[in-house]
């Protein structure tokens, strides 16, 4: 397990180094000093509607003579370009914004778990759990940013479809997993059936399977985040009992001193599993809905 963690860290560091080397080589193609190269590289990545502002910052830098002022301006320009780029990617995309905020929220809840129940840190499987959690959350953010906006969507409706349906599905999965009410498997069945709808709706109204699948992907990610938050909050609420006989029996074989810490760790592990399971199932089922929704309209080139 330690070897796996080291290997994963090595891969992450290697990918980071490759990215840095590529960025430096790209910067070196620009004429001028380091500050010029840095700002030019940053402004190249601005969205088209902000390209003029990038040229404005670069031309302003060309008129600054003092080296320290140039670097200060260039570093500020780098921040401005990164902000403009991120805002441009998220503009009019409430689901992508929700996914990124949700990923940060999940990270915060995990940190809170360790702060309130530090005994969980001694758990043998914790490195694996954290590796999985970190990888999944990074994957969530990358998917959210990488998805192109739904083309030709009616204003507001399809953009908010992922958000609304993701929350509904997430709540259904929470109700199923926590068994607050004795509903047996009905919440799970409802979640699976409802997962067909957002993709079908987006495909019909936006004229294509691709739009439907993008909507379903965002729906699955949002449902996963809602599920994680709900299950972690439920674990916080129930960690101190009351415990049934099977829970007491299970706890006595763990070696934990504090039952609340043990059940909090179990709850966190379940929440991480749902972070993987919910989007996978939602996307699989929802893609069927997207295909079906796309079949109802004449074929269009996506």
């Amino acid at each position, binding site marked *: 397990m330690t070897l796996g963690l080291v290997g994963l860290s090595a891969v992450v560091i290697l990918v980071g180094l490759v990215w840095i080397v590529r960025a430096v080589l790209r910067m070196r193609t620009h004429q001028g000093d380091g500050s010029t190269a840095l700002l030019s590289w940053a402004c190249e990545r601005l969205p088209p509607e*902000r390209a*003029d*502002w990038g*040229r*404005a*910052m*670069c*031309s*302003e830098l*060309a*008129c*600054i003579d003092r080296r320290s002022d140039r670097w*200060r*301006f260039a*570093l*500020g*320009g*780098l*921040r*401005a370009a990164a*902000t*403009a780029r991120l805002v441009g990617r998220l503009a009019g995309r409430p689901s992508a914004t929700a996914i990124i905020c949700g990923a940060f929220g999940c990270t915060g809840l995990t940190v809170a778990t360790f702060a309130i129940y530090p005994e969980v840190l001694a758990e043998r499987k914790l490195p694996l759990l954290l590796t999985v959690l970190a990888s999944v959350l990074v994957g969530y953010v990358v998917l959210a940013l990488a998805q192109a906006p739904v083309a030709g969507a009616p204003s507001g409706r399809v953009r908010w479809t992922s958000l609304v349906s993701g929350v509904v599905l997430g709540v259904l999965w929470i109700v199923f997993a926590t068994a607050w009410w004795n509903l047996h498997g009905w919440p799970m069945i409802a979640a699976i059936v409802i997962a067909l709808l957002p993709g079908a709706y987006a495909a019909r109204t936006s004229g294509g399977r691709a739009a439907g699948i993008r909507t379903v992907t965002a729906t699955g990610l949002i449902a996963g985040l809602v599920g994680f938050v709900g299950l972690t909050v439920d674990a916080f609420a129930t960690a101190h009992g009351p415990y049934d006989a099977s829970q007491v029996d299970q706890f006595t074989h763990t070696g934990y001193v504090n039952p609340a810490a043990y059940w909090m760790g179990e709850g966190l592990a379940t929440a991480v599993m749902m972070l993987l399971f919910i989007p996978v199932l939602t996307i699989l089922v929802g893609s069927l809905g997207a295909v079906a929704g796309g079949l109802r309209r004449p074929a269009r080139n996506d």
Partner: protein
Amino acid sequence: MATARRPSVQTMMLLDALADRPDQWRYGYELVSQLGVSSGSLYPILMRLADRGLLEAVWETDGRPGRPPRHLYRLTPSGLDFVGQLAATPAPPPRRTRLQGA
């Protein structure tokens, strides 16, 4: 009805600086130096004001030889009206903390 948020302190500083000389075109670095803010703070504000139609931006036509033309900024008539409205609206009182209320 949505409540309009009051602009940030840095935005207010920029609006006041531009409204002080409304007919004069200003450079970006000139505003950075005058206001004491970083370019990373100033340019997002300039972009937002331009998006809202409160600021106009043009490229200079008679720049220094050997250097690229620079961007120039000044407030639009809408921007000047906006500054006037802000000046007429009192700033909200500072929030009371628990210690202050004790």
